[in-house]
């Protein structure tokens, strides 16, 4: 079974990923935290990364978080990509957190 190297250029972390294994799962197995872990199902967009170099296959991802035009440019969810070669990735900043300001008034 092929094993690929994944390098996170943002954090400097690197780890191996087996053929057929998702990048996020490989990272979690090595107890690294260099990509945020959310639902692990392509739904929440938490583990968004930019693939800078390398080839991969994609599983199903929420169109809201990984629209086709972004996927074209390598902006994908780490829980739903399966390397075909070594990969160089970087973290994508999460959308700015919702302001802490509470607008709902108690009655």
């Amino acid at each position: 079974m092929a094993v690929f190297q994944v390098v996170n250029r943002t954090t400097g972390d690197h780890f191996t990923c087996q053929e057929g294994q998702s990048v996020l799962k490989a990272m979690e197995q090595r107890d690294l935290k260099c990509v945020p872990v959310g639902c692990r199902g392509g739904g929440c967009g938490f583990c968004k990364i930019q693939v800078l170099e390398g080839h991969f296959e994609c599983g199903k991802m929420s169109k809201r978080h990984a629209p086709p035009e972004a996927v074209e440019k390598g902006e994908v969810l780490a829980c739903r990509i399966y390397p075909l070669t070594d990969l160089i990735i970087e973290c994508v900043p999460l959308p700015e957190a919702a302001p802490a300001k509470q607008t709902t008034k108690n009655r």
Partner: protein
Amino acid sequence: MKKGVMRPGHVQIRVLDMDEAVKHYTDLLGMIETDRDDQGRVYLKAWTEVDKFSLVLREADEPGCDFMGFKVVDEAALNQLEKDLVDYGVGVEQIPAEELKDCGRRVRFTVPSGHAFELYADKKYTGKWGVSSVNPEAWPRGLQGMKAVRFDHCLFYGPELAAVYDIFVNVLGFHLAEQVLDPEGTRVAQFLTVSMKEHDVAFIHHEEKGKFHHASFYLDTWEAVLRAADLISMTDTSIDIGPTRHGLTHGQTIYFFDPSGNRNEVFCGGDYFYPDHKPVTWKTEELGKAIFYHDRVLNERFMTVLT
């Protein structure tokens, strides 16, 4: 139930891959597939539920919740509630009978948090699955996985909790069972009930509208929750947190994700509610304990990972 809203009746959840989703909700949660329709939607129920379905799965390119439906006692109550919603200024949409198979007409409305709800009076009565209504055995053989007992409630994230409270409490006759208040006295979480349960639907404040936190399914015992945790590991299912206990409601719980990233809960126990009960209040200073009673620390994922 003072306005005739009886209980949670169904939830329609969007999934990225129908086959994976059906396997998750049947093999792992132990729900029973009862039908499919020409839109490709799949209908499921838990074994103790008397109506034909409580969970509808719809394949889509973005996960989340389409709507949650409440069953009302009869058509007269449905007519009155519809009128009350309109009089209160809530726009309603008529969904004709049979748009969901074997379900009567539904009155759909969207609350200011951005979530769609429905009221309906009729759905095909199929009885509990696998047991007779005469001299019934304790439980049916052949249940899978966690053997979910019933669809219990949903938790939604969105803004405008006070306006949502007004609709649920003043128009639909829900009660506030539990709340979380921040230091200024602003309500940032509300747990609402129409029954003796501690919550039939809950909302937590979040700036973005219409977000889905979880759909929850009831189990009988703490042992069953631990067994559910075993099954989550055996099937390598994505876990969020647990088994643990909530401070809010005091239910014993575990959270995990379906294959499309929608969060599920299975839980047991918890407090009960009568209409003369005053709301239980948790303060945001103790939010960690309110959400996770044992760790007393919030995990960021619970507050931010949504579909």
